[in-house]
């Protein structure tokens, strides 16, 4: 952990410190929709991890070939192709999981974790580091989905990975259907975010990183929002009144990575 250039650091940072789901708030849609059971959550996590590692590797290999101006469409096409391959594999080998995840498999394409990591990391780092970063982020995402899925399955249906939990169903405690419904998804996710932020403050002795959210993910910001913001004439009043205006620190590609490095140094000092 001491050496912030080590591969182990790249791997571990995705798990709590920069957990993509619970700290960076990327990829919330699948996290809420498919986590009605632990197995669904883990399946979704593994699927997203596979695409994330592959897309990080491919984009890192192609980073010097892809022209800067068309990089976002290029990234999206690469990711969409990988997702199509994954969809075929899942249809062939895990048809039940594929059916229960349904539309959220193709929607991995627009999952901001993948485009976000492509833009913020793979586009400016070597192949090995990008693969490790993808693995770490993917494991962090999978763990988060596993916890949310387990809580919702145990409390909502009284089972865990499909196995009945006798001390819930026989102990006079009724399964609470609300946890299986959309409302329960939001509530469990909210509590998980609160807990992770608390853990983060304790272990890293600093405020959690500012929430990015998909609307402000680096993929969207660098490519297009910045271009639009600079093109809107002043009298239209577009950029100056809305909150989507790009933060100064995020305007240039690759700056986000440096920005995070600065935070790391800070956290080590506070230790």
């Amino acid at each position: 952990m001491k050496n912030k250039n080590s591969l182990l650091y790249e791997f571990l940072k995705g798990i709590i410190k920069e957990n993509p789901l619970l700290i960076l708030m990327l990829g919330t849609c699948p996290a809420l929709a498919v986590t009605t059971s632990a197995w669904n959550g883990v399946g979704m996590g593994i699927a997203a991890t596979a695409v994330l590692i592959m897309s990080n590797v491919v984009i890192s290999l192609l980073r010097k070939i892809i022209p800067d101006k068309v990089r976002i469409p290029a990234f999206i096409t690469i990711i969409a192709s990988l997702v199509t391959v994954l969809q075929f594999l899942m249809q062939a080998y895990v048809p039940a999981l594929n059916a229960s995840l349904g539309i959220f498999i193709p929607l991995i394409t627009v999952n901001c974790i993948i485009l976000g990591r492509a833009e913020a990391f793979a586009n400016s780092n070597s192949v090995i580091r990008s693969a490790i970063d993808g693995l770490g982020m993917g494991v962090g995402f999978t763990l988060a989905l596993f916890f949310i899925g387990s809580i919702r399955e145990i409390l909502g249906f009284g089972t865990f990975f499909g196995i009945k939990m006798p001390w819930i169903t026989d102990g006079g405690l009724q399964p609470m259907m609300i946890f299986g419904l959309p409302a329960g998804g939001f509530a469990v996710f909210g509590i998980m975010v609160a807990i992770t932020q608390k853990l983060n403050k304790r272990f890293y002795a600093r405020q959690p990183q500012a929430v990015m959210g998909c609307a402000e993910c680096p993929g969207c910001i660098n490519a297009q929002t910045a271009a639009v913001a600079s093109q809107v004439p002043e009298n239209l009043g577009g950029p100056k009144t809305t909150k989507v205006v790009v933060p100064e620190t995020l305007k240039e590609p690759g700056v986000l990575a440096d920005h995070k490095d600065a935070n790391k140094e800070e956290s080590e000092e506070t230790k």
Partner: protein
Amino acid sequence: MKEMLIILFSVVLIDNLVLSRFLGVCSFIGLTKDLKNAMGMSVAVIFVMMVATGITYPIYWSILEPINLGYLQTVIFILVIAAVVQVLEAIIRKAFPPLYKAMGIFLPLITTNCAILGVMLINIQEIYNFGSAMMSSFGAGIGYMLAMFLFTGVRSKMENADIPEFMKGLPITLMAAAIVSVSFMGFKGVIENLFG
């Protein structure tokens, strides 16, 4: 007509895009801090959703399906959406400056908004005819707008509330979303009662 109304009511109230299908949650949480942003984003989503459905639906059923390339839908749809967003942005900026002022800044964010791609895929999955597909897209957009507006109101009330320290920020926002989602569960059964 009755079928259209059933689709409209079910996508707006029962299968609400954000609160029960969980599409577009990121922008739902990110852009509901004030009404102006919520409004701009919702208008842009409705607009792009209708136009993109009008393009992707014929592409799928008249080109991809007959030559057995249906599996390419993800790649094709995401490229169509990206292209539509770029072209729309250019057209609106030239032709309708007031509209551009209201929603222009939100257009680029829509390319990676899962709500759009999700609705395109649902329209194909449900095997709607063209009219129903357009109605489903319109309804989904209206449902998104409704959820955004309701949630903006809830969040503006939360500004002055006394919130426990560890729930501040995102966690309390998600808890509020859970309660708004519970309120939408009350619409279950509205279709049966309205249309028999």
